[in-house]
């Protein structure tokens, strides 16, 4: 380790294709769960906004789910989903994403002032039309704030999956550690940071596009 430099650039140059494959695998493992989490969070959030009694127990459950250490959950799933499969890593990540997105969805839906809701009703909007034209757009800045947290954490958590055989870029950490060769570790950390930054910037751009009014009211829901 003494005369081993922190980064050997030629290794990165020689393994560009390999790194690209790991990056793609990582993006799928980390981000598909966030999308599924979003698809689940919106209907669940709507149900919670309509039936407030549902929200307390649900948020308590997800608070605990969020606190479960990822490695432990991966391990517990192995007998059902198999070692080194995508499902073993993606199922827990979906629940972590949902745990972040559910409260932000509910906050977003609750942030619509009653006067606005009543105005929509008075203008002849039915419940469905009011939901799609008023309440959901009002929740968009909150949802995107939640998505930013969920996506970035998911990208960093997915690498722990390498310990159960499927962690995308996380594999570089195992590889580098076993060979006492720091270059893959540095490359892995850097690529994960780049992926997280890229997704975060995309979400910020999406907020500008979908909710231009929220750009000036800083940090809604975050």
């Amino acid at each position, binding site marked *: 380790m003494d005369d081993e430099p922190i980064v050997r650039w030629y290794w990165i140059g020689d393994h560009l294709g390999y790194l690209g494959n790991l990056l793609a695998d990582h993006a799928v493992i980390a981000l598909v769960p966030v999308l599924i989490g979003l698809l689940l969070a919106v209907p669940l959030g709507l149900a919670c906004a309509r039936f407030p009694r549902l929200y307390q127990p649900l948020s308590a459950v997800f608070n605990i789910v969020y606190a479960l250490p990822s*490695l432990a959950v991966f391990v517990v799933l192995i007998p059902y989903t198999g070692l080194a499969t995508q499902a073993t890593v993606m199922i827990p990540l979906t629940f972590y994403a949902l745990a972040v997105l559910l409260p932000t969805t509910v906050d977003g839906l609750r942030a619509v002032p009653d006067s606005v809701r009543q105005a929509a009703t008075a203008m002849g909007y039915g419940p469905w039309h009011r939901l799609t034209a008023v309440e959901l757009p009002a929740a968009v800045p909150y949802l995107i704030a939640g998505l930013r947290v969920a996506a970035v954490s998911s990208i960093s958590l997915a690498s722990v999956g390498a310990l159960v055989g499927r962690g995308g870029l996380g594999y570089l950490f195992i590889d580098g550690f076993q060979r006492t060769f720091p270059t893959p570790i540095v490359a892995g950390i850097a690529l994960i940071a780049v992926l997280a930054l890229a997704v975060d910037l995309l979400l910020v751009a999406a907020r500008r596009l979908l909710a231009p009014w929220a750009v000036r009211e800083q940090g809604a829901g975050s």
Partner: protein
Amino acid sequence: MNWLNWLSDFFSDPARRSGPDSIVHRVSEHLMLSGEALFYAALLAVPLGLLIGYTGRGVTLVTALAGAARALPTLGLVTFAVLLAGVGDTAVLIPLVALAAPPLLVAAVEGVRGTDPDVRDAARGIGLTHPQVLLQVCLPSAAPTLLAGFRTATVQVIATATVAAYVGLGGLGRYVIDGLATRQYAVTVGGALLVVLLAVGAQLFFALLARFALPPGIRAQRRAR
């Protein structure tokens, strides 16, 4: 094989009762490492956060840094630190502290900034100095936020200390990693269950603290809200 078999295998093994691989020893290793990391993180982040929150300087920077810190992969930091500094507690403490510090820093900043400005003005008005206002007015009113920050940091550190077993450290992660390496699934599952129990226990501990250990004035305020 099913769950009950795995768990009874794990818990009935004599190695779990005494010696270096016993449950008591592994839990205490896990708690020691986590506690040490939290202690250093708090030592670093809380005073700095209180100061930043009170002066209002650097708040944007802190928020941005804390967001960026979420992207850091724990396994990468741990393996990297060990390759650079050699196997040992210090090498693993650095990434653990780096993970625990951002939530604490943000909590301290937000807690102080959340103090009612009228109360702060009143405290200045009756002649308290700035350090007195910070420690006697802002700190108690930041206590609930700070406690929530400690909860996040603790849960994260407990989870990451599990991962640290991969580089040869003790703690409950040993069961998980060794069980995977030797294909003794009972050991892996038993370890995972203990980690989950520890994390849930930490959550409960902080929920109780938030209910019973906050300053009485703050507690009344929270109930009224």
